């Protein structure tokens, strides 16, 4: 019995800093002092450096490779080419999408900057010198850059290695440059809806090739311990366990002899999900040399070879009544996957969750089909801060809704309100088969419109348009509305796996005798603050203060198996695993409490940080006391100790959503677009840490700004990358970035243990269409239906010029 002054439940709960508290991040003390430990900070005795000689051609046969001059550089230890990897069967590696990718170019190169030879040297300067001296003779081949010509009858064969393999990982390929055709929905019904519709709009909406470009590039340190046969790789891995399994499959080193460690990661945004040739080459080099080998790519290599995102060319079609009720949606996508299909999608979904493209609207019938093609561009197809292909789908749909509004002469917000799935329709099954868990779209949209005073904005716009026509201003006001529904938290093992690995996640908790704890997870933070938020989930679940709970991730030797952090899956999946493991701890603690309080198990109840006797709250045992008892008392029928592990297989995805409104001013003479205002309302269900959520939204919106307004990895007709460095690739500075206004509603997920849905990627999904709609809307009254992203100054000026608006 504890007789100390008994603070109220609320006081005790506040002390725990559990869910809902804007707890300050535990990671920050080390990051603010420069004491983080990122992969390039790792230094091991005798460590060598690897660097790639890369292809200058987009498509060419390799006639010869002469290593002699390069090997003569002092400090150079070895140079690997495909010839060296072939005997080990390592010249190709499996991709996450069921294709293979050349680790080092085998007989021919398929994209500019492809890895051709791997130089290993004593320091990075010697390696760089040698890279310059590797002589590669090429015989140029015709290049395929435009995905729309990839399947022409006379298009050159890109992938000779699979030229006669017409059964691909996702069905029949119907051309040598075809990868797959994937479809969902009711084609016939949709065609019928189109044929019978009062109004049909159709538009080609391209989402250009972009790159996630985290500030830290990809890299690793591989270290083979020849004595015990163990390969340890520290690297920028968003999914360490999956990397271990893949590494084991590729190298045939047994999985228990591989240890993958993700140290601090300087941002991921999808870039660090894949397995890249650098990792394999560093591992091989370490196995061969017996010393650790570091490989860290530079920014140009990062932008041009490891991962790209989007490159989706979407033809959307909407059928509607004259009153604006949508009666059908069709979309065909031409997907440019580059030279190898290395998309990071769950196996059964080669186009990710693109079929979420009916979005937030009650659309009775729909069909979508996606053709993936090979081109002479870098492989990738990662989810750049979004769930698999969701941002593409949301962009297409949200642009199409505006196109329809224009055609009908309706306000875009009103058209959305008219077609939203209503609150009482949840759980809602979409025409393309997804079961949306929860939502209240009307409330969110109305709250957004009220906060920005939407009506007033439209009035102001009308006045601006009149003034423009009267020659009183050269600036056009644009208002962009976007409403999106995300699908995140992949996902249920029954239909989500990567290379056969179910997409569950896990958490293991150990409570120490003195009442502190360690939790280990299969995820890995890249800035999301997991060490902070997962401790908060646990604090609420097990009643120990968050500050007494260590969260450890990213080491496959200690963490339970998990599929990693991307697609906003950490909170929905690993967060749930954490809560469930916490509940197991609590269940055992309940039995201990009952024993100590000498009552039946059912006669104690949980209250914040303790079990108390029902109806007699003065009789209680705190979690801290119970932890100690678990280790020092022999309790009949109970094993000593207090530990739990939970593997969480989510019953469904979660469906966060949001309403965004953006106001821009477009200078028609310069094409400069100024963001006057951006308002973002997000509903991500239960909010674990509002401060971190807001930070995630700010960051995601800034990436959306970058994508909508300037990012593009473009290629010229020879397949040369135009703009593969930060000289050209747009990353907004603090000056271009506006002040973000954030807001929220809370509609918990009914199937998630704590009701959380995940938020990190919503702002990218909703932000891009909001910006793009705003720019398009500025010109809408001149009849512009759609102008392609990115809306950089030149393109916007071109649009104005085409409309005859420039001086």
């Amino acid at each position, binding site marked *: 019995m504890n007789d100390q002054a008994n603070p109220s439940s609320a006081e005790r709960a506040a002390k725990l800093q559990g869910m809902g508290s804007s707890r300050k991040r535990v990671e920050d003390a080390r990051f603010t002092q420069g004491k983080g430990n990122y992969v390039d900070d790792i230094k091991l005795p005798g460590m060598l450096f690897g660097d790639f000689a890369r292809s200058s051609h987009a498509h060419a046969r390799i006639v010869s490779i002469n290593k002699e001059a390069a090997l003569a550089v002092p400090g150079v230890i070895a140079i690997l080419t495909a010839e060296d990897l072939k005997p080990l069967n390592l010249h190709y590696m499996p991709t996450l999408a069921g294709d293979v990718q050349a680790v080092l170019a085998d007989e021919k190169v398929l994209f500019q900057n492809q890895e051709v030879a791997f130089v290993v040297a004593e320091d990075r300067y010697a390696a760089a010198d040698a890279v310059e001296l590797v002589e590669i003779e090429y015989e140029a081949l015709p290049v395929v850059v435009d995905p729309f010509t990839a399947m022409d009858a006379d298009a050159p064969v890109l992938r000779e290695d699979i030229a006669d393999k017409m059964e691909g990982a996702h069905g029949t390929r119907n051309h040598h440059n075809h990868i797959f055709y994937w479809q969902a929905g009711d084609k016939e019904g949709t065609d019928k809806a189109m044929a019978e519709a009062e109004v049909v709009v159709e538009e080609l909406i391209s989402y250009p090739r972009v790159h996630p470009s985290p500030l830290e590039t990809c890299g690793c340190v591989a270290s083979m311990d020849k004595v015990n046969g163990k390969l340890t790789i520290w690297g920028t891995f968003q999914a360490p366990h999956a990397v271990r399994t893949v590494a084991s499959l590729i190298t045939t080193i047994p999985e228990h002899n591989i240890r993958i460690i993700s140290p601090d990661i300087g941002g991921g945004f999808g870039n660090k999900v894949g397995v890249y040739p650098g990792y394999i080459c560093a591992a091989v080099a370490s196995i061969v040399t017996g010393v650790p080998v570091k490989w860290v790519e530079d920014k140009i290599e990062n932008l041009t070879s490891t991962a790209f995102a989007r490159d989706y060319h979407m033809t959307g079609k909407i059928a509607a009544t004259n009153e604006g009720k949508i009666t059908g949606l069709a979309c065909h996508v031409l997907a440019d996957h580059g030279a190898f299909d290395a998309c990071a999608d769950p196996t059964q979904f080669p186009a990710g969750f693109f079929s979420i493209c009916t979005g937030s609207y009650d659309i009775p019938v729909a069909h979508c089909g996606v053709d993936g093609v090979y081109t002479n561009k870098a492989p990738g197809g990662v989810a750049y801060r979004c769930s698999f292909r969701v941002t593409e789908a949301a962009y297409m749909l949200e642009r199409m809704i505006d196109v329809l509004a224009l055609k009908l002469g309706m306000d875009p917000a009103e058209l959305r309100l008219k077609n939203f799935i209503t609150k009482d329709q949840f759980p809602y099954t979409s025409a393309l088969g997804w079961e949306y868990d929860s939502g209240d779209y009307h409330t969110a949209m109305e709250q957004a419109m009220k906060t920005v005073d939407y009506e007033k904005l439209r009035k102001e716009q009308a006045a601006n348009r009149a003034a423009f026509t009267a020659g009183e201003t050269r600036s056009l006001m644009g208002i962009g509305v976007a409403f999106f529904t995300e699908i995140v938290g992949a996902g249920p093992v029954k239909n989500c796996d990567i290379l056969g690995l179910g997409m569950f996640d896990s958490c293991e908790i150990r409570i120490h005798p003195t009442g502190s704890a360690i939790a280990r997870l299969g995820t890995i933070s890249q800035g999301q603050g997991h060490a902070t938020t997962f401790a908060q989930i646990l604090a609420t679940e097990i009643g120990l203060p968050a500050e007494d709970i260590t969260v450890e991730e990213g080491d496959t030797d200690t963490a339970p198996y998990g599929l990693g952090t991307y697609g906003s899956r950490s909170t929905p999946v690993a967060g749930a695993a954490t809560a469930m493991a916490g509940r197991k701890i609590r269940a055992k603690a309940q039995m201990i409490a009952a024993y100590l309080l000498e009552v039946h198990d059912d006669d104690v109840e949980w209250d914040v940080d303790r079990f108390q006797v029902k109806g007699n709250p003065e009789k209680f045992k705190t979690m801290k006391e119970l932890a100690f008892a678990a280790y020092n008392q022999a309790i009949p029928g109970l094993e000593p100790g207090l530990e739990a592990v939970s593997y969480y297989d989510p019953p469904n995805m979660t469906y966060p959503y949001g309403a965004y409104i953006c106001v821009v001013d477009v200078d028609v003479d310069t094409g400069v677009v100024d963001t006057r205002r951006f308002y973002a309302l997000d509903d991500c269900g239960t909010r674990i840490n509002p401060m971190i959520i807001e930070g*995630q939204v700010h960051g995601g919106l800034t990436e959306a700004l970058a994508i909508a307004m300037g990012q593009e990895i473009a290629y010229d007709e020879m397949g040369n990358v135009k703009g593969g460095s930060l000289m050209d690739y747009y990353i907004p500075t*603090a000056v271009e970035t506006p002040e973000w206004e954030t807001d929220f509603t809370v509609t918990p997920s009914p199937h998630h243990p704590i009701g959380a849905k995940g938020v990190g990627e919503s702002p990218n999904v909703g932000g891009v269409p909001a910006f793009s709609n705003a720019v398009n809307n500025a010109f809408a009254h001149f009849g512009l239906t759609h102008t392609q992203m990115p809306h950089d100054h030149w393109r916007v000026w071109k649009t104005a010029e085409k409309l005859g608006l420039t001086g």
Partner: protein
Amino acid sequence: MSKIKVEMTINGDKIEGSVEPRTLLIHFLREDLNLTGPHIGCDTSHCGACTIDLNGKSIKSCTVFAVQANGAEITTIESIAGADGTLHALQESFREHHGLQCGFCTPGMITRAHRLLQDNPNPTDSEIRYGISGNLCRCTGYQNIVKAIRVAAEQLNPAQEAAE
């Protein structure tokens, strides 16, 4: 390649080293001296992750050779906190206002802000935004960084605040 002797004062300590003429200062700091606070985020002098303070100016240390820093006075993120380990107001403020996520830009950002506040102790928000425009951040969207710097400035200069 032949090496050249260099001497500089880094975080208050006299340092001697010998470097190739082409060795970049960032590599000298990170690899020879194990000062891994300043990071490398690009190869075109755009990101500012490598920002240090050199003779009273913010410098992108990937853009100078170590030999050019011969005789210089250098401060890196490692010495922004007090010798006793107490965090500087900027460091506290970044933590308090969530001015960092992955932390990769943070050392450069704080080192830059540290200089900015010495040059302009009471910057407006737009002066802060221009002042840090040589430092990229991919995670935060800058809003909380600007706030963190503003609040730190207010704390460091309560007198001026009051005088206004």
